[in-house]
């Protein structure tokens, strides 16, 4: 994290609401997109961003190491996404047949990207979180292990199984498509 941001995090930890707001707003795109990868719709993604902001605001004073702000915030976001998924009855388990019928990303024009996102969205949730944190958030395996509260070895397993699943589906789609 840049020095200027660390200053901002320190201010936020000390209770400066403006600094906190600035910080969260700096990351609004990443927060929203990550939430979207879990719930695939705007309304729920916005709810997750709101809940994450709320949870983070309530506990920012407990963050002792400003360097870890983003990691800490991401962990909250993932928990909020998971909580919403658990609570929401609208999540229907997807079968392969349904997979082709459901288009969670209709607004994206690039077909390859749409397909990739749909596949991520339908991965086993453990693999999905590992994949998002590794490829999108650029976190190290160690950080992911701390974030997901699982051993590093398990992160590696999730990543390789996630990648394997992505590869299989991609090949299959390309054959059919």
């Amino acid at each position: 994290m840049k020095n200027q941001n660390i200053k901002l995090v320190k201010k936020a930890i000390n209770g400066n609401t403006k600094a906190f707001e600035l910080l969260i707003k700096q990351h609004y795109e990443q927060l929203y997109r990550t939430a979207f990868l879990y719930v695939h719709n705007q309304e729920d993604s916005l709810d997750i961003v709101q809940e994450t902001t709320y949870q983070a605001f309530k506990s920012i004073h407990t963050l002792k190491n400003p360097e870890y702000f983003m990691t800490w915030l991401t962990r909250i976001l993932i928990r909020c996404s998971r909580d919403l998924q658990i609570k929401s009855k609208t999540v229907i388990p997807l079968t392969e047949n349904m997979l082709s019928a459901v288009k969670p990303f209709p607004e994206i024009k690039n077909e390859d990207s749409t397909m990739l996102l749909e596949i991520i969205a339908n991965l086993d949730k453990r693999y999905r979180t590992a994949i998002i944190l590794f490829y999108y958030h650029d976190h190290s395996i160690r950080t992911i292990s701390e974030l997901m509260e699982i051993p590093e070895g398990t992160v590696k397993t999730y990543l390789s199984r996630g990648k394997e699943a992505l590869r299989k589906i991609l090949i299959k789609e390309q054959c059919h498509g």
Partner: protein
Amino acid sequence: MDNNKMKDAIDQIDVPKEAVMKAIEKGIAQGRQATRKPRKKVFITTIAAASLIGLTLSSGLINPSMNRVLAAAPLIGGIYEEFGDKLGMHLSAQNLVSDLNMAATANGMTVELNNAYFDGDSVSVTGDITGDLDKGTNETGELSFDMNFENNNGDSDPWLNGMSTASKRTKSGYKFQWKLAYPYETIHKGFTLPITIHYINGIKGEWTFNIPISQDKIETIAIDQSQAYEGLQIYIKEILLANASTTLEFKTISAFERDHIDLYKAVDDLGNELFYYENNTTLSRTAEQDGFHTNLRKNMEKLNGKAQSITLYPSVSISDPPVRKLLNAGSFTLESERSNLGIKVNKIKEVGKTLLLDYEFTGMPEDISKNQLAILLNNLSYSLTLIDREFADKIDPANPVPPASHSISKNEVTLLDKETLRFQSVFDLDGEDHIKNYSLENTLLQIDFSSFIETKKLAPFKVTLPK
């Protein structure tokens, strides 16, 4: 797989900037409401860091997607939505908010109280202020009340402990919401709450109200079961069911006055998480023959009617009194009273206007992680204090603030050797924090090990629910 391909794909997700910004602002408004306790300096111990992050995980009372359902709630609900109060939104949607329509005027300012609700232990009052607020001492946009409830005076008012105020500027003044936590053990369905406002934004006046507060449903499920651990005991008294909120009442008994015993998690036998790092309202504290008794209440998720038992997860963070020694003792050790942590001071040196301290931190497990080391470095910079010997006895243990101009608490810490956990602390003797007439012979080094002692998770225990 290619990182960039993945990133490019994700970056194509359209972000509705305005709506996201609004969601962030709402989250903050909601957070302001929820901040009940005054902030105090909190240190994190290494493992506690992970568990404190748990603080963030307790989700609101109502599922976030409730926002959507309630967006269409009637007019009164609007103010609760504005202040991010989900409980208020929920109750107003069920028409469980009462009208007050009371007003009082003094010194050119009118306070109007509009609505109130009472659910479980949560009390809320909303209102408006109009008049010449700018002649007060506050900055524009700030609103503050000096007020009391019932016949209480000053800070010794139990209602003020759990109070939070949210406000927003209107064309002619402010609208506001007071949120209170019912501070007594027995919750009555209805009562009259006398309110006296002494000052608004520093402007003196006397605005008094007697507001009726009531809830139509409050049911008690007696639990009456307790669990003993070494040196402490937890008694689960009862669960209270109100319209939209559920609360748990319990008592902790400890041999140490400042130990903090809490229930950090509860899960029913169906696997539903009932709370996770939820704040408590302290109802009473007493010293009895068998130890220090604390009666607490916390909010929890609604109970499922089919649940037969609840597993509770207690934790204890022990208090450790600060220890100190005179600096001129040469090389010496300082040891924690209730843990095996300690510091071994090797060398003390004065260089110009700075004091250099070379020491080893002992008692930590071997092979601490990079993260634990970072926390250790950070906490050390706050936990060491130099204190003027003459003033050492003037520190109140209940509010241990070192005396100004006679203590230095900030120091720059550097790691000298990772293997032996050897550090150097540099104190600026001439900084903002300083000791008047400083001399090495008359200065004590104090360390508070509390922040390095991990919060201990105790074995979970089960309570059965009555049929």
